[in-house]
């Protein structure tokens, strides 16, 4: 594998899932570093923090995996808030919505956001993970 993703971010409240993804990333060496937030609000707070300190560009992830169903602030609310600040973040960020929901309404709604690259249905196969990381790193 050539290039590697510097920083990936997972926003998901399912601890087991997060642990497993963490393992995949470690085993396959997909990303140097990993940010983990258990709901949209925690992630958003982090991004807002960075906005105020422009020098911390390295701390912005290259790729975000966003869950939909989460307590406190769910994926939809996060998307609505993230749109507002995305342009002031000086970095290209690829965002994937990752959910176990197979409801077509969720899929359509997610695709209506321009900043959503794709809607991935859990479980994601290892190969798919590798492909996504390769594409983002290239």
């Amino acid at each position, binding site marked *: 594998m050539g290039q590697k993703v510097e920083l990936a971010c997972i926003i998901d409240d*399912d*601890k*087991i*899932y997060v*642990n*497993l*993804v963490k*393992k*995949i990333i470690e*085993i396959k060496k997909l990303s140097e570093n990993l940010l983990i937030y258990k*709901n949209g*609000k925690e992630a958003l707070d982090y991004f807002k923090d960075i906005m105020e300190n422009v020098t911390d560009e390295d701390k912005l992830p290259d790729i975000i995996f966003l869950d939909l*169903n989460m*307590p*406190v602030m769910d994926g939809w609310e996060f998307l609505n808030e993230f749109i507002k600040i995305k342009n002031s973040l000086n970095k290209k960020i690829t965002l994937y919505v990752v*959910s*176990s*929901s*197979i*409801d077509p309404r969720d899929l359509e709604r997610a695709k209506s956001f321009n900043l959503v690259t794709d809607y991935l249905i*859990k*479980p*994601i*196969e*290892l190969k798919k993970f590798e492909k996504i990381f390769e594409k983002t790193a290239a």
Partner: protein
Amino acid sequence: MLNDLQLNSILEDFDIAYWKINLFSKDIVWSNHFNILVGQPEIEEDRFEFFINHILHPDYRYDFRIHFEKLIKENEPFSFEIKLKLENGKYRWFECKNQKTRDTEFRETAVLLFVNIHQTKRDQYTIEENFFYYRETAEMTSTGGWYVDTVNKNIYWDDVSLKIVECPRDFQPAYKDRMKFYAKEHHNRMRNAFDKCENFGIPFKLELKMVSFQHREFWVRLTGKPVYNDEQEVVGIRGVLQNIDENKNNELNLQNSLDIIATQNSRLFNFAHIVSHHLRSHSSNLSLIVELLRESKTDRDKLDLLANVEDVSDNLDSAISRLNDIVSIQTSLKKEPVTIKFETALEVVLASISSLINRENAKIVAEFQDLKEIRYIPEYLESILLNLITNAIRYKQPGRKPVIFIQTYVENDKEYLEVSDNGMGIDLDEYGEKMFGMYKTFHPSNPEAKGIGLFITKNQVEALGGTISVSSTLNIGTTFKIKF
């Protein structure tokens, strides 16, 4: 004076034919016009018999013969409506009558006139027929006619209208009382429609509730159109009034059923979605583990992953039991509600959570004087109380002894239950909309929060036709109010 020729020509112009009958010889002479009307037949037999057998409609043969006899013998006046077969083979209506003779002493001839009344007769039939259809339609569809004279301020209702409004047949509605026949909530609509029609000639078609003479409310469809005088001023409004009570009630019932079905359907849909989502999230974790197991090389890695399998299994188990809680809302709906005392239901609940109450040193005050009991499904009432009380204790203000105040009362004939606490409160601006949603937790710091209690409570309350609302102030407390 006119001579015979002139007279004949006038009679022909008026389409009047005649017979001249010699009373002694019984000879009958047909006028030229009569002869032409019946197609100038060649007659070998007796003229009268020919007429009876070939021209007169069979229905009138007997009567005609009798009357004719009487005319000839006793000079009795003759007036009779008959049907004659004309040269084209079709029957036409004629009025047949004798010419009155002034001289009663001496008679030599009698004159029988045949006046064509076919058109009149037909019009009369059409009118009778139309009137019949109109009556039948009005009766069958329960549609009455009405007229309001806006100049002289008078109201006219026809028989059917009076019947619809359950008024006596001779009832005359007074103009000033006209509004009392409409349900109060529709007075404005009615006035607006009438004013617009009276002032601007705009017709109307309304569905509204009327109040009958017997003070019974019922639905009608009411149409009104302006009536103009020669100066093109509106002088009245007329229209029809249709009793649609049965239809309207059916419609309302249908709408009601439809609403219930739609809610149930969307609840089912959501439920199916929730089930699929929550079971899928575990199954997808399982399949991820399996994939990783295949990839992992050391035994240590494998053992780590097996620990995860245990976690998934636990989560799956609790997810299924929570889903089961929701399913049981629907199934216990089949149970019959019974009269239960709030006191009893509360005792059951408090007994089941006594250790939690003791641990948190919670104080529970209940006031059921105003409403002691209710017809409800006991399991629901207990579940509602349990959820609201444990919620209140779980979200107590740290450092403050939890106090929960439970109260029942009646307001405007509706039964209420209120559960208030002195807990940490909820930011309703932020969480208000999602508060009763599934798997929403508001206090991320609280590990016990599963976010399903309020969802179940709301479902239980609504399943029995009630509503639940919440008011809250941060750091002061929360009140849940249930309208049964």
